[in-house]
């Protein structure tokens, strides 16, 4: 009886108070906001001691440039910042998140610095404004001149926190520059700062490439008259010749595991693609055709190589399987397709194509579909190379005959900007791996 009473009562209650909620099914197929509104506050001095506003300003500029290049963020105008921006609160409970939310920010970077006896310490935090959580926090120590490096490293960390993969901002770019009158090898930061000359051969240096697991570079040099392949240790400066066969020894590219080098040799009077050991010995010949085969580029798995060949008439990009030696054609359009570069993420291959007398950068899927033109306008854009995370491309641009310089852009062709100085005739960039 009790059960009956209770069930009747429940029915009545449901009838009286329970209003059936309408259920609707919706699909949202794109976010309304495709960038993350980010607020970067100025570094504030921590503790008592001398203040270095120039250090704080430089740090903020470098960090801002890196994050803008990433394309992930929409930076909140610092002019609109409220009182919380002027407070050094690096803990969750010390931050007025309501202020930042009012400004529309979803992510917030706060930080402080101190300098004691020439030693710089920077404390940095990235907060999620909506959930009021600390996403990442780091403390960096170094010398005052390391401020740029610290900013690049924290930018990498921010990308890791928000995308799951580190950024490439603390890596290096090698390139060939003619600023001394000779084509020499240089090294610079990803934003073009701190250029360092690596060679002084007073000759012609070409086609640099980084070793994936050692701090060394390979490149072709005419130092001894013949285009030979050289290897150079970055920190010691030690240099040795890897391949000095008669004819061309050009376009050397390390395999993803760093155990082999793909190289174009013309020792048999015709340029072909070979695999060399890191000691310079030939492991294997990959192509065997009367046409010209040059510019090898490894797939991230290390089982295929993209290269340029004119075996079907005009130079086009082909792919050779290094085990079966089966060759497939990748590009069919354009009069001249050159310098392929396989994305380290896999999936796409970048190359430059000559159309209407101008080279532009294109990308295409490994299966030859979905070809996209990334660059437009005046100037020859050549020698594309991927960043180690596959997010960006670096290339050379002659701006219509005004002298070559190094440019950088996102993998979809947006955000292109010049990073090397004009007038120094810079070309053949190569992006380092992380170290």
């Amino acid at each position: 009886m009790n059960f009956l009473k209770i069930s009747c009562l429940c029915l009545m209650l449901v009838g009286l108070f329970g209003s059936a909620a309408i259920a609707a099914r919706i699909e949202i197929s794109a976010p309304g906001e495709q960038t993350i509104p980010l607020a970067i506050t100025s570094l504030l001095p921590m503790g008592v001691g001398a203040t270095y506003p120039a250090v704080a300003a430089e740090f903020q500029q470098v960090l801002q440039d890196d994050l803008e290049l990433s394309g992930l963020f929409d930076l909140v105008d610092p002019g609109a910042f409220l009182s919380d921006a002027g407070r050094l609160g690096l803990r969750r409970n010390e931050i007025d998140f309501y202020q930042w939310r009012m400004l529309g920010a979803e992510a917030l970077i706060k930080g402080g610095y101190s300098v004691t006896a020439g030693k710089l310490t920077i404390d940095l935090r990235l907060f999620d404004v909506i959930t009021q959580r600390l996403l990442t926090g780091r403390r960096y120590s170094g010398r005052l001149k390391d401020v740029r490096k610290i900013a690049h490293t924290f930018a990498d960390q921010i990308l890791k926190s928000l995308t799951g993969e580190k950024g490439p901002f603390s890596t290096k770019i090698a390139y060939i520059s003619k600023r001394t009158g000779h084509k020499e090898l240089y090294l610079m930061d990803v934003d073009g700062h701190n250029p360092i000359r690596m060679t002084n051969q007073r000759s012609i240096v070409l086609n640099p490439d980084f070793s994936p697991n050692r701090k060394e570079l390979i490149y072709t040099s005419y130092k001894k008259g013949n285009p030979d392949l050289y290897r150079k240790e970055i920190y010691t400066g030690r240099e040795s010749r890897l391949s000095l066969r008669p004819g061309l020894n050009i376009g050397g590219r390390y395999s993803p595991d760093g155990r082999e080098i793909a190289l174009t040799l013309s020792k048999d009077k015709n340029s072909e693609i070979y695999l060399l050991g890191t000691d310079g010995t030939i492991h294997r010949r990959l192509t065997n055709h009367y046409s010209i085969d040059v510019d090898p580029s490894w797939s991230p798995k290390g089982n295929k190589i993209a290269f340029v060949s004119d075996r079907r008439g005009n130079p086009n990009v082909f792919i050779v399987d290094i085990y079966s030696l089966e060759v497939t054609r990748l590009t069919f359009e354009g009069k001249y397709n050159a310098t392929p570069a396989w994305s380290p993420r896999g999936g796409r291959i970048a190359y430059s194509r000559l159309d209407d007398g101008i080279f532009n950068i294109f990308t295409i899927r490994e299966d030859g579909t979905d070809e996209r033109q990334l660059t437009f306008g005046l100037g020859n854009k050549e020698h594309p190379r991927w960043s180690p995370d596959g997010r960006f491309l670096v290339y050379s641009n002659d701006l219509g005959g005004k002298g070559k310089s190094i440019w950088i852009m996102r993998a979809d062709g947006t955000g292109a900007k010049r990073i090397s100085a004009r007038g120094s005739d810079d070309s053949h960039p190569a992006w380092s791996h992380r170290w």
Partner: protein
Amino acid sequence: MEPSRKQRWQQLQSAFEPGFRQMLLVSLLLHLLLPILSYIPFLSQQAIEKPPVYRVNLVNKIVKNPQAGRPEAVPAKKKSVAKSKPKRKSKPKPAVKPKPLPPKPKPKKVKPKPAAKKKPVKKKPQPKPAVSKTQENNLQKRLEQMRAKQQKKASEQARKDRIAALKAAALAESSKVRSPISAAPVGMADGSGNEAGVSAIAFVQEFIQQQWSLSKYQVIGSPEAEVKLVYNAEGTLLHYKFLKKSGNAIFDESLTRAIAKSKQLPQVLPESMSFEIVFNLKDMLGKP
């Protein structure tokens, strides 16, 4: 011998627990009470006056008549309603002609006459001592008041006529507007009659989409997640639940942020609503 119907009923009653009949009666009464309660004005939902709702949706453009959509489609659907309106508006049309203020001069003619005539008339009543001067003054005051009233009425009428004429002209103008595509679909897919704005579902969809921020550079591949959100009629999120996670932590985290930002809708809903929302990146522009 078989038991009679009365005996069987008594047997059945003995099988029930004591008080079952009373409980049954109470239950029946309460069930009868439900429809009565629902019709009592202070309990019925219809009595609640909802504030006007203005929603902006640039994709599904607001139309006055979401069901009708194109201006020329309105009379076709609701002829009975639409006809009555233009009839009322057509009446003022003839009133447009008297608009050149002919009514004004008419009363003017009437007004000065009695005023002018009365002065000479004043001499006539002199032989009649029954009408005193104070009475005369009162009369004059009254006349003046009447005159003022008439003037007011006339000017008001003229203003009304003018407004009516303008309205009629605007209506005539709008009826001339034709959709460039005669075969264009009429109204919104989820339109439900004479309402200004989009439907509540479309509004919630757009609002949550606006709160969702994710960069194409953050996610690789085509993640998809399904979330159930329950809102009460005040537009407050009661609870949410991931029906299906995408497997991509960054993507799912972005959805959690969007939901946190959508805790309170800026508009009330017609009633409590639950939404099963599928989030994906099918329409993300330029996704490599």
